[in-house]
């Protein structure tokens, strides 16, 4: 069950954040689709042998980011693509991340055209991965 979700306490990223990142990645890759049911906090805590409160904190964060939706009495589901409330702020962070990649590109002597080609390449293989998905 949920082999795509791994939590390693040795990583410098907090354990609840690893769950958040793992589920967000699965949604982005199409392994999880809108409306799919997710395990309950208790089930996931057992599967990952992880403290109940760590999993609950991850679900709260995912709900805040509108990645998942909790329906009282029915369970937890992958959200229907509602935009998160802090979209503007996170877009700025995304921009910052791209700038950091440009710094790295400069030091690898990757020019503008080559950088764009690289981005295109990654996009194509990402799309292919999604198509052959589950």
């Amino acid at each position: 069950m949920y082999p795509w979700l791994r939590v390693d306490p040795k990583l410098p990223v907090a354990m609840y954040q690893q769950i958040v990142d793992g589920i967000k990645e699965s949604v982005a890759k199409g392994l999880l689709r809108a409306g799919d049911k997710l395990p309950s906090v208790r089930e996931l805590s057992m599967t990952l042998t992880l403290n109940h409160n760590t999993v609950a904190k991850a679900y709260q964060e995912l709900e805040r980011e509108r990645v998942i939706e909790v329906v009282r009495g029915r369970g937890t589901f992958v959200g229907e693509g509602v935009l998160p409330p802090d979209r503007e702020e996170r877009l700025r962070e995304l921009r910052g991340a791209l700038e950091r990649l440009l710094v790295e590109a400069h030091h690898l002597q990757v020019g503008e055209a080559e950088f764009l080609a690289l981005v295109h390449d990654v996009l194509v293989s990402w799309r292919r991965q999604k198509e052959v998905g589950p």
Partner: protein
Amino acid sequence: MTTAVETVHLSKSFAGTAALRDISLAIPSQSIYGVVGANGAGKSTLLRTVIGLYRPDAGDVRVFGTSVPAEAAALRQRIQYVSPDSALPGSFRVDEMIRFTRMVYDRFDADRALRLLKALELPADRRIRALSLGMTMQLRLLLALSTRPELLLLDEPTTGLDPVVRRQFLQLILQEASSGHTTVVLATHHLADVERLVDGMAIFYAGRVVRQGMMEELQRGIKRVQALIDKPISLSEQELNQLPDVLSHDQVGRVHTFVTDKNPEALAAKLTAAGASFVEVVNVDLDELFTHVMRKEGYARDGILLS
């Protein structure tokens, strides 16, 4: 948040040797709480004092707000202690032991015992002395969980368990803790058991508590600051080695790593101002936290090379 277990200036000695020195601890109700420390740090003595097997020499220990030494018999209906050292009668069969425990505990849940017996695949008709070490531990947990305890004290509970059974064991403990009726105290020197499971913990060393708190507080308290120093900066090598509040400083190539338990941001700012690049503050894992806390106490063992 209510407190399940509270010790106030608790001390206990055996034949003049102090096993617990002035321990003041508060374990929140319905949490999973780790008690970690090296061998002989006082973990088992603490648990045995909490269940009333030992009387404190000084100070007090309270469970659910009641002083243990005064009310041990009544409290013991609500507390369970699981340890690889606790004696079981070897001539009893597993089912006889379950029946015996049922007579002793008012709230014994026979259905639960039966379900656990099946899930753990224990042979009901085998004598206890013929059980393996791991099976005996499983029987102890079965008996403890079947009394529906409000406080479950586990002393090195995964001793002798294979990885499959160990996982099942940890799942049972997690389930019990998430039920909202039970507080679990887990004493162990296996940090890997603690890391994934606990809400908070206390680190013991030589009978004292050297650090305690909820996991987030503990991890906030100690950080690693990494920096790339690839050109001369305004701090000399000697100054780098003598930065204040740094527990350790290591260097691999041009990457310097500092571990600090005071104000990591100030240290990061200082390094950045001096000209270091890619300065980053990151969490340390539990192994590292434990090592540094212990080293501060003077507990360190270096590796030796056997010739």
